[in-house]
């Protein structure tokens, strides 16, 4: 009990904000029960790949590696997942292929940026170019998935009004993994030995090295494993949210995820909330367009997500600080 109250007083601001948001959400649901659940649902649907992709960014940067290639990782995984499923006739094989492709793409970044100490931005850009090129070149039309990823609903949790409807029912298992992943990465990053080491490697690698942590190995493992989350995000795009693969269908979501990572101050749960916020702003923009009634031109409502991003970044500016060693390959000084 005492621990709980110290925890609460330490996290007062986020808790107050979360409570305020929840109250606002339920109030909105009370007033506009006809559109509120679907809008929150749309927000979450939009946020799912962003949450997964932002976590990839968080894990990478917390270990000191900038990952600008998330877009490419997602695209490759979306491609591999879709076509392997279409050819093999098995959804599960496709999903595994997508996740595997994400791992391989993560491994590519790890080898180039960490082992070979290539400029991390360039390594990521190379990954994006390779992904666009390969997936455009080998794209064949007329394929379709053998099935759908079934929707699941969580017992008990799905009974919660509004929250259960939005988060715990009517979506596939990938959506649940996204929630779990955000929580687990948060716990691991801030409450485990691996997390402490990862943060040390990302903040001050020479000190970590002195303490006996193998900097290069930890970075490589983290960047590669994070690729599986990017793979899952890609699989979600081509096999769950839609049932098709199109050229560049990631449509900038990998870059958006990086912005969300920054807005989320390199913290998994904040990034999760930011992705939701972004999704909700998008849902609001389309809802305003859809219902009409307001005499706001659609061009103006379409700018809403960007205006909101600017406002949040302006408020957050100066308060968020990236990991100290992000972007710098680690070279032992006295070798």
């Amino acid at each position, binding site marked *: 009990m005492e621990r709980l109250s110290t925890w609460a007083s330490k996290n007062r601001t986020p808790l107050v904000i979360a409570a305020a948001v929840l109250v606002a959400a339920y109030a909105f649901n009370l007033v506009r029960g*006809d*559109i509120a*659940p*679907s*809008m929150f*649902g*749309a927000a979450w*649907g*939009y946020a799912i*790949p962003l949450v997964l992709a932002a976590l990839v960014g968080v894990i990478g940067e917390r270990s000191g590696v*900038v990952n*600008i290639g998330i*877009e*490419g990782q997602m695209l490759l995984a979306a491609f591999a997942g879709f076509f392997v499923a279409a050819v093999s006739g098995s959804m599960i094989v496709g999903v595994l292929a997508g996740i595997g492709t994400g791992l391989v793409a993560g491994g590519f970044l790890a080898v180039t940026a960490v082992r070979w100490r290539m400029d991390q*931005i360039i390594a*990521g*850009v190379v990954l*994006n*170019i390779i992904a*666009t*090129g390969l997936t*455009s*070149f080998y794209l064949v*039309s007329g394929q*379709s*998935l053998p099935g*759908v990823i079934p929707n699941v609903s969580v017992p008990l949790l799905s009974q919660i009004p509004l929250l259960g409807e939005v988060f715990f029912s009517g979506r596939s298992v990938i959506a649940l993994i996204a929630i779990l992943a955000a929580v687990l990465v948060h716990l691991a990053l801030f409450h485990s030995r691996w997390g402490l080491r990862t943060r040390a490697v990302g903040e001050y690698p020479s000190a970590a090295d002195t303490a006996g942590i193998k900097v290069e190995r930890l970075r490589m493992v983290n960047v590669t494993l994070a690729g599986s989350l990017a793979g899952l995000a890609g699989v979600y*795009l081509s096999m769950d*949210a*839609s*049932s*098709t693969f*199109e*050229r*560049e*269908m990631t*449509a*900038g979501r990998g*870059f958006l995820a*990086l*912005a969300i990572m*920054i807005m989320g101050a390199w913290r998994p749960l904040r990034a999760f909330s930011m992705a939701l916020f972004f999704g909700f702003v998008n*849902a609001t*923009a*389309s*809802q305003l*367009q*859809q*219902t*009409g009634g307001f005499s706001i031109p*659609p*061009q103006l*409502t*379409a700018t809403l*997500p960007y205006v909101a991003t600017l406002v949040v970044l302006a408020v957050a500016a100066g308060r*968020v600080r*990236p990991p100290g060693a*992000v*972007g710098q390959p680690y070279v032992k000084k006295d070798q």
Partner: protein
Amino acid sequence: MKSTRYLVAVPAALALALAGCGGSTGTSGAGGDTGSDTGSGDTAGYSTDDSNCADEEVFCIGLVTDTGNVDDKSFNQSAHEGAEAAATELEGVYKYIETQDAKDYAANMAQFTDNSYDAIVTVGFLMTEATVAAAEENPETKFIGVDQGYPEGTELTNLTGLIFPEDQAGYAAGFLAGLMTETDKLGQVLGQEIPPVQKFAKGFENGAKAANDAVSVQTVYHPAGDNAFNDPVWGAGEARKQLAQDVDVVFGAGGNTGNGALQEVAKADGAGESVYCIGVDTDQWDTVPQAQPCLITSAMKLITKGVTDTLMTAESGEFEGVQTVGEAGIAPYHDFEDTIPDDVKSQVEEIVAQLQDGSLETGVTL
């Protein structure tokens, strides 16, 4: 300091990624000579022997596809079938080239003009500029640009752009939707807000309201510019949201974005029983088979008929103008033939006939 890296890196990465895609589409090299397949239809009715195209008596038709194949079940295939029909009718010569790379448009057309072809059909609005340029260079050859609207001041007598009244196609589809809806709520998931899409959308809305004045139409355009027609995930999300708000007929018009919406409706509960979807441009029963569970029809441009008719005009004399307006309608109902009541079908049929003979106006103004 560090965070400024992103300010540079993110746009730079985007730019490079886009540049990368420009260089990696399709086959490399001279696609016009080596990378393209030249069609050889041995079907009866027309010849593919173009050695005597210079002869006045022989009418030679060449078709250049937009990057895509003549069996793409979409624009290219429709135009190809139209040209085949015309060649058969005229007992002429017909060949086609499938463009592999947008850079080869001119080279592919030159293969036909060099051989003194009489008429060349180019497919898709992306070929607009290349077609105008080729028509200027080859005044002896007649050019038909499918789905191409030319800028004001284009004054060539050997060129016509075959365009279609999107508003009429949308109107007919909307009329059907207005009769089919149980909830009196229709949805539209659209690509970018540009004139052809707006005409489909406003036509749909007017048609729906003409059929059922209690109906409300929820319209949403994709907000971003360059990927507006290629974001199936967004389209699916919007369709899902509309369904949750009691919409029971979704019109998906916007390339892959719209197709994403159709596929989402096809996966929804009650697809084909209580919720339906409507495609666009061509008969999407063929182009998006995944949408079949809900696809009652498509708001269709009658490209095949338009190409055939325009080629007949080209053979017999002068084009009616720089633009030729084709016809629009709706696609067959396929498996929903029995679901849609007979009186609905006959009402829609009447509307389509009235639109085509000009006795009914859609009332769409942009």
